[in-house]
């Protein structure tokens, strides 16, 4: 069981701040593929992956990162702090 978090427009499109997901996905990319199947909103949110970033257990990483041992996955657009 992992917790998936969404921020900014990903959160708005999906309509959830977080979801508990039971998954066999081994990489972030596999998980994204699974999430796309959950609803049209999910499919839309993940339609342009160039605009999506991911953090595993609060560390920024890439879409090919392995999920083993990960408890928290966060998806969000490119950051705009400062």
């Amino acid at each position, binding site marked *: 069981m992992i917790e998936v978090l969404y921020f900014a427009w990903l*959160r708005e499109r999906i309509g959830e701040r977080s979801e508990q997901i039971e998954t066999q996905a081994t990489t972030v990319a596999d998980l994204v593929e699974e999430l796309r199947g959950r609803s049209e909103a999910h499919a839309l949110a993940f339609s342009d992956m160039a605009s999506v970033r991911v*953090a595993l257990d*609060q*560390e920024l990483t890439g879409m090919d990162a392995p999920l083993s041992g990960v408890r928290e996955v966060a998806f969000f*657009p*490119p*950051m*705009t*702090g*400062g």
Partner: protein
Amino acid sequence: MSVRVQSEPFDMGAEVAAFSDTTAGAGAVVTFSGLVRDEGGMMQTMEIEHYPGMTEKALTAIESEANARWGLTGTLIIHRYGTLSPGEQIMMVATAARHRADAFAAAAFLMDYLKSRAPFWKKETGAKGTTWVDAKDEDEAALDRWSDQREGRGPES
């Protein structure tokens, strides 16, 4: 080293004064503050979302990296989240060093990393509606100049 993530406004003047007082041995203090632009009166509010938990970690990591790269006697990062009005302070960084080149470089470095590597997202509401602020290509490009392991030292203070 100090990192604060808060919704409350901060008093830039008081922060700078307190920071300068605590940096023993410093000859140079540089500060940067980011303000909500009023865009000629067109901007109504800015909402800043962040990722509690990761935000503090990311800012602390950025601050540690700056301290590893330059000879600093102090660093401070404050970043707000929540709803802000035009003219309000969004965030500030301060760096103190013996020499001015280190203080300037470290402040620019902190800002470049904070822009693109700290989990904040801005949403603007103005005359044209509400939109998420797009990340800028040049902000991503700005990170390239720090990719050398160490920066060359510039002029001394």
